[in-house]
């Protein structure tokens, strides 16, 4: 309750700060650059087929439905779509931090810096002092405490013989340490629908915005983590965690072997005494405005899936980790010097793969449920697009769609099996 009041007050403060900037700009008679949270241009959601038919219809008197033929005007559709994507494309937008309507006194989210009045600058300076001088050291200390305790206590528990006592202690230790880490980030988390919390033998699936997702979920329940063993501090933490309870860590070489990965995961879920597995099927961090394509691996295993939607409130501190722009340490420092991290977690009712549904369809169904609950846009795009090239299959899809409406007789179309 107290937390709600805190965040409400902060929000009102930000709106006031934005108003001051707008006033400053107006006084100087300059045009304010207003960040649009979503798009620059209006895109019509019509399909390729609809649009091309519409263009043709306006251009000729012929009865269109009987003749699917190429028209010179067809190029307009592709030209416009092409130029639209040059001006504003859906994919790249998702990989850069979300733009805010109001300024939250962090320079990293401000674009109108030079319109700030003296009063606002003083306030901002005060904010910097508080954040870096007081909050940051406090949080860093907490973080070190949390991590240190985790490593230390799990190693001790690892010495105990396997049994109920060990599991009980391990649970308590994990929860406690994660809660300390949550405090270290000053994360204000609201959990919804806790009755749907993942149970043993299931797989918990969530959308991925930053490494903090793990801490947020793990402070409310115990999960078996899945991931690659890293070197350095991360590796130390991973190795000691696995002493206390069975997490699934892979060597770098094993990660490429999909069958090995699938086998270890299914072995784990079959053992009902083991904790539910936590997986992020997008495979990479997305900026929390949308959910990208889920990799199907986790959905092939055949156990119950517990979807979880995580939505961060970007006004208080942008939690998105742009790993191509910032390293992990840099990222954590930014997180710890923000005001707070406010987020909501929804536990969705469990889902199972239905008869006649393949892994990909199941994955999409889960993805749609998560997107709907979290208020995120459900995209078909692959998170792998962040770094890689667009596969030619997408272009082929477009060509296929177009060929259906531009080639007169269907038996002209190439039979994919080559029987023609």
């Amino acid at each position, binding site marked *: 309750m107290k937390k709600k009041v805190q965040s409400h007050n902060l929000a009102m403060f930000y709106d006031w700060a934005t108003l001051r900037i707008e006033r400053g700009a107006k006084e100087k008679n300059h045009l304010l650059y207003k960040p649009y949270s979503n798009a620059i241009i209006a895109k019509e959601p019509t399909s390729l087929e609809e649009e091309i038919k519409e263009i043709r219809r306006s*251009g000729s008197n012929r009865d269109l439905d009987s003749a699917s*033929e190429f*028209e010179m005007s067809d*190029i307009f559709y592709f030209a416009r779509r092409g*130029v639209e994507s040059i001006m504003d494309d859906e994919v790249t937008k998702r990989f850069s931090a979300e733009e805010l309507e109001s300024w939250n006194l962090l320079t990293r989210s401000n674009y109108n810096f030079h319109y700030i009045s003296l009063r606002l600058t003083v306030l901002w300076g005060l904010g910097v002092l508080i954040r870096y001088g007081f909050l940051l050291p406090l949080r860093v200390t907490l973080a070190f405490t949390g991590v240190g305790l985790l490593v230390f206590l799990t190693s001790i528990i690892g010495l105990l013989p396997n049994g109920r006592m060990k599991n009980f202690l391990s649970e308590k230790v994990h929860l406690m340490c994660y809660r300390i880490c949550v405090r270290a980030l000053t994360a204000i988390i609201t959990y919804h629908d806790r009755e749907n919390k993942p149970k043993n033998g299931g797989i918990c699936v969530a959308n991925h915005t930053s490494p903090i997702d793990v801490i947020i979920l793990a402070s409310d329940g115990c999960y078996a983590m899945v991931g690659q063993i890293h070197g350095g501090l991360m590796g130390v933490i991973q190795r000691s965690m696995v002493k206390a309870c069975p997490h699934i860590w892979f060597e770098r070489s094993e990660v490429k072997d999909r069958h090995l990965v699938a086998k270890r995961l299914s072995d784990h879920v079959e053992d009902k005494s083991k904790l539910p597995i936590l997986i992020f099927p997008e495979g990479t961090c997305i900026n929390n405005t949308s959910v990208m394509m889920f990799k199907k691996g986790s959905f092939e295993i055949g156990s119950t899936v517990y979807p979880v939607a995580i939505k961060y409130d970007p006004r208080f501190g942008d939690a998105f980790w742009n790993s191509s722009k910032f390293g992990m340490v840099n990222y954590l420092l930014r997180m710890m010097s923000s005001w707070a991290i406010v987020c909501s977690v929804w536990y969705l009712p469990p889902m199972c793969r239905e008869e006649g549904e393949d892994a990909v369809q199941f994955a999409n169904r889960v993805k749609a449920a998560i997107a709907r609950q979290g208020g995120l846009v459900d995209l078909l795009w692959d998170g792998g697009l962040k770094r890689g090239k667009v596969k030619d299959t997408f*272009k082929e899809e477009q060509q296929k769609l177009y060929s259906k409406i531009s080639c007169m007789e269907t038996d002209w179309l190439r039979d994919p099996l080559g029987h023609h």
Partner: protein
Amino acid sequence: MKISPAHIIRLYDRFEFLDKEGSGQLRLEDFAEVKELAMNPIGDRIIGAFFSPGQETVDFPSFVRILAHFRPTDKNRAKDSTQPEPVNSRTSKLKFAFQLYDQDRDGKISRAELLQVLREMLGMQVTEEQLESIADRAIQEADLDRDDAISFEEFRKSLEKVNIEHKMSIRFLR
């Protein structure tokens, strides 16, 4: 709807975003980074439209000038033959589309050029013979002076009823 300075700023941000090297000019590779464009069958052609012949880079004014072709047409503009044709008029839009076909800029869409476009738009989905038939029919319909090529006037005539103003326009939000 007029383009406001705020729109230009927005376009400049987009330009800066695309300009990965920060050189103040866009190169072919910068355009190729746009994922949705890679999925467009005539993506490369559209990129080419931004570069003048012989140029390897595009600066911001040229960038905006090309994008301006897609501004909605001002229907209330008085037809004044002393003024230069605005870049978003129906004729200019038609010229833009014509040049997408006519890559060698000789003022005519030859059969080979048409075939090339069809090949790009249809890819592996049809055979070469079918492409040739489609090209034949298209030229037959539009080519009025029987020179086996489509000139700009023939192009314009064949599209005289098409609602180009709407289909070749992009609207800014607010």
